[in-house]
């Protein structure tokens, strides 16, 4: 178990380094940002100074090396081209808010999807199962932003229940101070995740129901409730852990779209702003952080999987 964990950690570090290489290659293909950053009226000397200052005239590997040195040696992700602050401070200000949005939505979707999936498995192919399956199929087929728009239309525009814009503020506390504004963004993201998880949970629960230990539990006279919630629930939760790890990139993508749609002040919105204003250090820093979060999530999921399931031995 310890050996396995160490091996997985080393593997994760390699993956993160690989992400950095790939993002650097992609970035070297992007148009030169100098003119866009210093402005159309800047003199050629200013443009040149910007290029030199930011290593943009250096070859790819030198830039990469400098970046790596900057991260490890100076513990910094560099400075934003556009905003007068470091990439690190942008991320440390906005990432917690994104984490709040994605985390709460993920939690809600799991808490709802697990019991509903079990319920569907128990009432397999009955009308109630088919209704839920139909709903999750349609939710699954909807682009995230379309689902969000529909929620805005019906719950904000037609019936004035919730505001259509996410709460604004620079700290998590300020965001939490306006809970009504959080409802629609979180609902959008939770519904998107729910669609995937409930389908998975249903098939996972159907498989569990056919297992011997369920038959044993029933045979020894346990109530249906005890069978479902003591024996089956625990066993069905194990694949969910892996699923969360695997779907993390998709969840983060949906999070980015939700942030843009509701103008939520998180790193997803920052990323789009950075990319469209050619603020490459910010875009790169955010990608790196997101990739680290994904790798870390997968690592934790794998370790949790080994810890939860006594049959898994590495």
């Amino acid at each position, binding site marked *: 178990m310890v050996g396995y964990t160490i091996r997985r950690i080393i*593997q994760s570090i*390699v*993956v*993160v380094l*690989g*992400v950095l290489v*790939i*993002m650097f290659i*992609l*970035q070297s*293909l*992007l*148009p030169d940002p100098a003119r866009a950053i210093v402005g159309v009226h800047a003199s050629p000397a200013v443009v040149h100074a910007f290029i030199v200052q930011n290593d943009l005239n250096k070859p790819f590997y030198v830039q990469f090396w400098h970046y790596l040195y900057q991260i490890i040696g100076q513990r910094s992700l560099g400075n934003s081209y556009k905003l007068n602050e470091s990439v690190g401070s942008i991320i440390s200000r906005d990432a917690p808010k994104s984490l709040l949005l994605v985390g709460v939505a993920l939690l809600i979707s799991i808490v709802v999807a697990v019991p509903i999936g079990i319920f569907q498995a128990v009432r397999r192919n009955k009308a109630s199962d088919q209704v839920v399956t139909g709903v999750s*199929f*349609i939710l*699954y*087929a*909807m*682009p*995230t*932003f*379309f689902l969000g*728009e*529909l929620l*805005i*239309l019906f719950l904000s*525009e037609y019936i004035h229940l919730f505001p259509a814009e996410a709460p604004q503020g620079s700290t998590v506390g300020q965001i939490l101070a306006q809970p009504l504004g959080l409802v629609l963004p979180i609902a959008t993201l939770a519904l998107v995740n729910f669609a995937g998880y409930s389908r998975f949970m249903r098939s996972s629960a159907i498989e569990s129901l056919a297992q011997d230990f369920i038959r044993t539990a029933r045979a020894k006279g346990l109530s249906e409730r005890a069978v479902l919630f003591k024996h089956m629930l625990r066993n069905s939760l194990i694949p969910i852990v892996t699923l969360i790890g695997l779907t993390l*990139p*998709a969840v*983060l*993508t949906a999070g*980015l*779209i939700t942030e*843009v*749609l509701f103008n939520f002040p998180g790193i997803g919105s920052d*990323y*789009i702003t950075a*990319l*469209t204003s050619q603020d490459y250090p910010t*875009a790169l820093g955010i*990608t790196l952080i*997101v*990739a680290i979060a*994904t*790798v870390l999530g*997968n690592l934790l999921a794998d370790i949790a999987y080994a810890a939860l399931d006594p049959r898994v031995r590495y």
Partner: protein
Amino acid sequence: MSITEDLNPELEGEFAAPFANPPGGPIPDGGDVTGSGSAARLIVRTFFDNKLGILGISILVLLLLFSFAGPLFYHSDTIVATYNINLPPGPGHPFGTDPSGRDVLGRLMIGGQDSLIIGIISALVSTIIGALWGAISGFFGGVVDTVLMRIVDILLAIPTIFILLYLETIYHPTVLLLIITISVVSWLTAARLVRGETLSLRTREYVRAVRIMGGGRLRTILRHIIPNTIGVIVVQATFSVANAILLLATLGFLGFGLAPPAADWGSMLSGGVSYIYDGYWWLIYPAGVLIVLAVLAFNFIGDAVRDALEVRLQRR
């Protein structure tokens, strides 16, 4: 073949309840009833027993007819901007007009062409890349496998949209570019699945036999390994189309879709979304419904194909 058709009711009974006989229970007299038709026939028949599969195919055919045959019967100017902006549905414009005064129904048709073409072709390309990558990785094993699969891990660690947006920022989105970029980010799952299959296939006798007879590695992979993973590949390709259409729609929303006068459903939908508070519902619902229908259709077909292939595997 008439024999299989005669046996049809019995076969269907077996398909409906493959585990009707409890394990260890009595074996029916006369032995197992096995289809004497080819495997492909069995798959096709099982597929068409699946109601959702048929629904998926029907929706797909309707969408293809709407997008490709529709413009032959319904003539409208989808390119030139007019002063008739944001007209509600009415005579002359069954689905109203858009903010540039173009007919929405006509644009939904040409948007459908682009959306479906991009979705289907990028799914094909990405599945082919993924299948080759996975087969090579699994077949060679060792260092090759480690390197190829770490590359997949690395790309999987970056959420799709991040890579996609980088690529889209470089060039002006065209149909070809969208196909390339969506393919570039979508082949990873196929690679993993095919690698898994290959790992078990490469130890089979027939693969060894090919090698002993002097068959080259490339030949073994292309002629013997990949054809045997075709089930996984087809299912994955179908789901990929659904994902590609969703990705395309998302790109449209973020402003990286096809630029007007070209159209795709995602860009049209997100264009309509800007007018959400003006009550121009005809700019939102039709495009949204078409996207949902297309994605649903491919998901239904994918599920049905998978079920059909599983039946074949169970009966082997």
